[in-house]
């Protein structure tokens, strides 16, 4: 899990907009050459890998994969390269390639939904807390502290015990768990930005507070939030697959990468590929999201990129 270190939070705007000539909104487009220079071969491979996974996930129903849930005991535990089952089958004769692809769909849906909830809640809390100050700040940021007072997996398990495992529970609890990171990140940014002249100017021109907040402040604090997205997606996949591995996330027989590793444990001496395949796919996915995060960081958040790379 990647909790941002408050010391690391960059003050983007203060460096991009020298005081005196501050535009109302920093509308300069992100420099395209910065995007190109941030793309190393490895990072391109990572982006392509994620693209392939997303594509496979969307097209899963139409590319002629066997059903990932239907059991076929006659063809159980087939090795890699078997006819009709390029990656073999598990102990119930279910096609492993198909389970990987449909598992990816579950991972992505859960991760994207949870991240969306986290970003919306977290950013709104951070914006409100940082901009309005006083009791709003106390209420928003202290409630964030309370969520962070629980070890994430412990909170998730408590919720799963009460509501039972399942996709909705997972998405809701992970949205809650990942929101604080965004709240703190946004809050730190807003506190820096709120005293700049262009924010004051917007108020002087008669914009309502809400308009100033969403139209002027938000665009100026968005870069680090966007940079954080792939890391949250990766964190969500890690946590979801971990809970599913424990049998407390996705409910079988729905395919999930974590469940596949758990299922493969009993046969791993004879059939190590049954745990190694999903393991490698999970690791590559997490790694790729991290690399894509690096691209976004170098592209959108140059100061932080410099701080990291020296």
């Amino acid at each position, binding site marked *: *899990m990647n*909790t941002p*270190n408050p*010391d690391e939070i960059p003050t983007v705007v203060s460096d991009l907009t020298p005081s005196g000539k501050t535009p109302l909104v920093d509308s300069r487009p992100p420099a395209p050459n910065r995007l190109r220079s941030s793309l190393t071969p490895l990072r391109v491979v990572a982006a392509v890998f994620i693209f392939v996974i997303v594509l496979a996930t969307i097209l899963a129903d139409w590319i002629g994969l066997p059903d990932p849930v239907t059991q076929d005991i006659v063809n159980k535990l087939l090795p890699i390269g078997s006819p009709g089952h390029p990656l073999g089958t598990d102990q119930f004769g279910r096609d492993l390639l198909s389970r990987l692809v449909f598992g990816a769909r579950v991972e992505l849906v859960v991760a994207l939904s949870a991240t969306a909830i986290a970003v919306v809640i977290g950013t709104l809390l951070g914006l409100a807390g940082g901009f309005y100050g006083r009791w709003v700040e106390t209420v928003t940021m202290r409630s964030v*502290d*309370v969520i*962070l*007072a*629980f*070890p*994430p*997996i*412990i*909170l998730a*398990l*408590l*919720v*799963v*015990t*009460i*509501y*039972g*495992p399942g996709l909705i529970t997972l998405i809701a609890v992970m949205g809650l768990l990942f929101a604080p990171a965004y709240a703190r990140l946004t809050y730190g940014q807003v506190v820096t930005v709120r005293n700049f002249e262009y924010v004051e100017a917007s108020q002087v021109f008669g914009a309502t507070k809400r308009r100033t907040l969403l139209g002027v402040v938000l665009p100026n604090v968005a870069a680090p939030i966007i940079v954080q997205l792939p890391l949250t997606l*990766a964190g969500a996949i*890690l*946590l979801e*697959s*971990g809970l599913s*591995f*424990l*049998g*407390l996330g996705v*409910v079988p027989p729905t395919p999930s990468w*974590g469940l596949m*590793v758990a299922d493969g*444990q009993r046969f*791993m*001496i004879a059939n*190590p590929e049954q*745990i*190694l395949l999903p*393991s490698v796919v*999970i*690791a*590559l996915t*997490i*790694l790729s999201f*991290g690399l894509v995060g690096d691209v976004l960081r170098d592209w959108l958040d140059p100061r932080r990129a410099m701080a*990291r790379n*020296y």
Partner: protein
Amino acid sequence: MIRFILRRCAIGLVLVWIVLTLIFLALHLVPGDPAALLLGGEGSGTPTPEALAQVRERLGLNDPFLVQYWNYLSGLFQGNLGTSFRDGSAVAGFIATRLPNTLELVLVASLLALVVGIPLGALAARRGGAVDTGISLLTAIGLAVPVYVIGTVMVLVFALTLRWFPAGGYVAFTEDPVGHLSRLVLPSIAIAMGITAVLARMTRSSVIETMGQDWVRTARSVGLARSQVFQGHVMRNSLNPVVTSFGLEVGALIGSTVLIERVFNWPGLGSLLIDAVLQRDYPIVQGVVIVVSVLFILINIVVDVSYGLLDPRVRQS
């Protein structure tokens, strides 16, 4: 310094109270009947009225809300965490037998991570070049591979194939010291992996930043040897962010321990919790969540205080 510690403890106490209240509310504010919710779930059918009444009785759900809250908090102060749904024995007893095992695992893993991670990061920062690239690659992998995968693959390779270590389980140190330690090796390495990677990365960037400071050049030009400057000054000045990142990783460390205890069948709080969640034994889940959350807050206080000890500026804020 004393004031700093006292204030930090006071905040911690308030946080403990809020956390305890939230755990209480988690069950009591759910829409509908909590008893029905706990008895429901996949494939369990409609619970009988008798079963519902029994659960309500055992959780004290028939009392007025505030009485329940009072009983809950005053019970906690007396070390009463309720009784298990399954056999009616005290939850506190379960936790007391399991907690030392988990603490042992967490402590050994933390030590391992500190002893390996910090020198690894310092090495990467000092040598640069191929060493740096190699270590960066290692840490990236350490961060990307989920802990339960590391554990499972370790069982496959080092226990089932090479047969260097047992595949899991636990024996008391007093009964069989060698057997105890050999069962400790794989799970603690698995847990330490992720946090080692984080510490190594943090140390690396922090050391590089420190080495760029003017006073390092001054120290060199005054005639101190490279190793003297490094060990005596650079390392000392680089460790603050590392301590912070260690503190931030404690939550992840607890998560890893829960998963790894499951993989290696280690009888700690984590496996107790998972079994209880699977059987929906709510009193045990609640008890473990309370104990682990309170410990988590305590650890964070210790980390903050040690940060204050290392850096006087922190004490003022």
